[in-house]
């Protein structure tokens, strides 16, 4: 797996639910079309919305992501989700342009 460097920004949370913004240090430049066992909720040429058991993630070719509706204080879980997504990205047949 390539070394995906990013900033994880916790957004406002409310009622025990949190959103995380993943901001990559360098652009990936490719958006996978196949997310394996994960259900793709929205497929758009410029972004995908993917369902995880405990949250929803919006992904962009830039490598930016929005992780939605995680329980409170789920920073570690957010990092795990990001690793999982990057693993899918790597297996999707195209190597990211800026590893």
């Amino acid at each position, binding site marked *: 797996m390539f070394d995906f460097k990013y900033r994880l920004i916790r957004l406002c949370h409310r009622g025990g639910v949190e959103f995380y*913004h993943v901001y990559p240090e360098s652009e990936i430049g490719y958006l996978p079309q196949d997310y394996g066992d994960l259900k793709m909720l929205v497929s758009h040429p410029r972004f995908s919305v993917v369902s995880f058991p405990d949250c929803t993630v919006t992904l962009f070719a830039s490598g930016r992501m929005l992780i939605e509706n995680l329980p409170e204080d789920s920073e570690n879980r957010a990092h795990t989700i990001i690793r999982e997504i990057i693993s899918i990205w790597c297996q999707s047949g195209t190597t990211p342009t800026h590893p």
Partner: protein
Amino acid sequence: MNLDLIRKDFPQLHQGFIYFDSGSTSLKPAPVINAVKDYYEKLSASVGRGLHRPSNKATFAYQEAHDKVRSFFNTKGHVIFTKNCTEAINIVAHGIEWQAGDRIVTTYLEHNSNLLPWFNLRSRGVEVIVVKCTPDGTINLKELADSITKKTKLVAVSHASNVLGSIVPVEEVVEHARKKGAMVLVDGAQAAPHLVVDMERIGCDFYAASGHKMLGPSGTGILLINQDILDRLKPMMLGGGSATDVEFEKITFTKGPALFEAGTPNIAGAIGLGAAVDYLKNIGMEKIRKHELELTAYLIEQLKSVDEITIYGPKDINKRTGVVSFSIKDIPAHRIAIILDEVGDIAIRSGNHCAFLLTHKILKQETGTARVSFYLYNTLTEIEHFMNVLKQAFCNV
């Protein structure tokens, strides 16, 4: 109003990005940027301290900025420069001598800046009454009037909502407060940049505003204080400039508004704010208001044409500023914002807008709303692009 000429003054508009987030902070025109740059290149010195000429010139420019702001708001009262609107409100919250049993009346419409400083006083026995508003942002003025009792020391209301854009009839609020002898603070963060604000006509005791939302530099805010009230207020901070003489036994405090600007102030920011006020005055607040109403009406009309979209705020366009909050089905607001940014190079604000009581208790939007907020430099063409991106990304249109 020559929009092409105005847009040329804003360097950030030429980066290929649509900026619909002026409710958070405005872009800065070249005269403001140049005023700040000029200070650092030609005038850099502390104010009110030195006898050397750079200090004199900086002092005069700093004082002149106060005068410009005083004239802009048509007030005979005092002008205090702060780092933002939040600090301006906190100066009042810390400055009034509260007694247990005092009452503050505020509303559900408020930004945290005009709510938390008052909630914080509850630990000192101050009672805070929060008056409800309707989902379109109308405050129940009868309920507000009924909440003001002889024990009410302060009524604190927004001039315009940062979420709904609804304009509050602050003159009426002042009228109700005066009947019971209460002071009135108006949070003008969302009104001062967009409306003609006449402090004398409003008749409030305190008017707080954000310099950085009205074309001024970051780190600038304004607190206007009615002439008769200043002596009843204690400074939140003390330091350089606060005293004319200090002994162990006795401190002689500075008289006037300078007492509330302790320490070396944001001189460059203040001078930039003066340039911002000049810029707005030169264009004319009436013209800016008219332009923003045109943009707002067009956007609302376009949003209404899409079934999946819910628009918040007053139906009567004349009762709102250039702020339009909306939601799309059950899509979280943050998702709307990040997609507009990535796909359309459009900056909007999303979430609760620091107005939790309003978004959750009144609008029932747990993830908040998506918010477009206009200013004088926005165009109808930008709205057309925005609508195209929005429809392509979210709607089956």
